[in-house]
């Protein structure tokens, strides 16, 4: 180091505002803001959202754009390849596949979202109560959940469908009867962990009621994992719908769903593969979109998991 030339002036006291050094260096960002910044950088997840918005739009307006409707059969024009008249072709009853695809989208998305929503409501309430009260309450509530969890999900749903008969709502109910458990377990785990943390104790010692604690502190703080589970529940429900329809337990005619269309197209696979292509493609696309959004959310909300 070269010798510095220092003057008296250099040895005058330095006045530094102490509050300045107390400030956290770097941009201070809140958890959600930071998560959003990370999520935005995830191109796949953003693409997933765009795809879902497009699918949603088409589910609502797709049928009217096509100029056909999903149920009109036309025996003069069966099994037509995609053309300017029938954009996705027609099926063995001459129904327009484009119109049926978007009618199916409506039903598939509705079932997926509704099942996830009901799972959420039941799971969060069940899990939050079990986790919050702990002890015996927790033990009994979770024992019930464990027994249900031990059963193979699809097998139970199939049996319930056999008993309850086909229909959109029976399908949703059959899915929710066992589907909420996953959500309940995750919420319970989070709540148990959070319960022991100090701010809850602090809030409690200030006289906050149980209800207030549950809704003001615990649930907002468990939102991250809930959100992730939710995004992964939707594709699972869509898959289950398609699976059941494929087995002939799904949406009753004349409505279509992607599962019904795939199932119907299978017998004609050899000669009319395009009939299978469209519904299969959209099932995969929707599941893919939800999966990448779920992955993106998980990475964004849990910085630890990030590379």
């Amino acid at each position, binding site marked *: *180091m070269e010798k*510095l030339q*220092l003057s*008296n*002036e*250099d*040895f*005058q*006291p*330095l006045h*530094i505002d*102490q509050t*300045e*050094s*107390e400030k*956290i*260096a*770097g941009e201070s960002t809140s958890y959600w803001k930071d998560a959003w910044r990370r999520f935005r950088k995830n191109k796949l997840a953003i693409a997933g959202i765009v795809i879902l918005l497009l699918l949603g739009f088409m589910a609502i307006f797709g049928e009217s754009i096509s100029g056909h409707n999903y149920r009109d059969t036309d025996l003069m024009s069966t099994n037509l390849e995609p053309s300017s008249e029938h954009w996705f072709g027609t099926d063995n009853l001459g129904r327009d596949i484009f119109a049926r695809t978007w009618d199916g989208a409506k039903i598939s998305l509705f079932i997926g979202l509704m099942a996830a929503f009901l799972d959420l409501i039941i799971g969060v309430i069940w899990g939050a109560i079990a986790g919050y009260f702990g002890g015996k309450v927790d033990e009994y509530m979770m024992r019930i959940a464990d027994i249900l969890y031990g059963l193979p999900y699809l097998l139970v749903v199939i049996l319930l469908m056999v008993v309850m008969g086909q229909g959109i709502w029976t399908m949703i109910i059959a899915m929710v009867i066992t589907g909420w458990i996953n959500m309940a377990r995750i919420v319970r785990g989070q709540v148990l962990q959070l319960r022991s943390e100090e701010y809850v104790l602090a809030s409690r010692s200030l006289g906050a009621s149980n209800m207030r604690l549950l809704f003001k502190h615990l649930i907002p703080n468990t939102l991250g994992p809930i959100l992730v589970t939710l995004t992964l529940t939707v594709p699972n429900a869509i898959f289950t719908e398609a699976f059941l329809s494929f087995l002939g337990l799904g949406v009753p005619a004349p409505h279509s769903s992607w599962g019904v269309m795939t199932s119907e197209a299978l017998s004609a696979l050899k000669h009319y593969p395009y009939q299978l292509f469209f519904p299969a493609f959209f099932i995969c696309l929707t599941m893919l979109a939800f999966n990448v959004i779920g992955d993106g959310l998980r990475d964004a909300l849990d910085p630890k998991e990030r590379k």
Partner: protein
Amino acid sequence: MKKILSVKNLSVSFETYKAEVKAVRDVSFDLHEKETLAIVGESGSGKSVTAQSVMRLVPMPPGKFVGGSIIFDGEELIDKSEKQMESIRGKEIGMIFQDPMTSLNPTMTIGKQIAEGLIKHQNMSKKDAHARGIELLKQVGIPNPEKRINQYPHEFSGGMRQRAMIAIALACNPKILIADEPTTALDVTIQAQILDLMKQLQEETGTAIILITHDLGVVANSAHRVAVMYGGKIVETGSVEEIFYNPKHPYTWGLLGSMPKLDQHDEKLKAIPGSPPDLADPPKGCPFAARCPFAMKVCGEHMPEHYELSDTQKTACWLLHEGAPKVEPPEFVNVGGSKVNG
């Protein structure tokens, strides 16, 4: 005494998505045979990174060597290949980590974890390594070693695990033992036991020790020399007596002042106001200037050089410049009897 490790102007940075974090800046120190050097500093001061750099255990990327050298036994470690480092780690330099609960492999018996190094570095047979493992466990004070050696880490208590870690680190009689906060995660009573054990083993084996800690109480008892780190730099080094009885750097004063003392009735601990500098954008002058009650204009502008106060004591502070006003250390520092635990 012979110098076995010499770190010169070491700088290590980490690439993060925001900026390059300069964790270690221009750090130099020597380690002699059979001595214990304590590196003291608060979290984020760069002490652990310094220690892991010696072992070349800093993950790269995101870490990288920006400059400097690490000479061990006359050889430059920074230039060594990963393969060459393997025959130094464990054999020449051993290391123990902060949390004994997580630093042992949960699915492998203690015996196997000790034997691994012996088999690799000393070409021992499995049987010999097992026998030596029992010996080592006995040496680190684990009762019933014949039984313990076949147990898994979860069957050990925290203190026992740290003893086992020490046995693993010392298995091949390394010349240097790096202990990275070896007692931080342990109960106070266990802490003293572990420190005593390390001292005793040093006397038996002659290993030099680098003790990384944030706790001056630990230092007083077990170190010969001390290096105080702040903001990625060493601000003061000296023998343990010099650091405790004649400290010259205001940060060292602060550290001493924030130590609880038995003979002091004033119950308030002297905390150092402010927080450590952001190493992504370190200040160009002294890193401590912003929190230093004696800071001068020059401190904010230029990093002070190390003033040699004795053969062993070197302090980087502008207060030692002949032009600077004379400053007396605060009263609480200069009490002769305050050296903790004598």
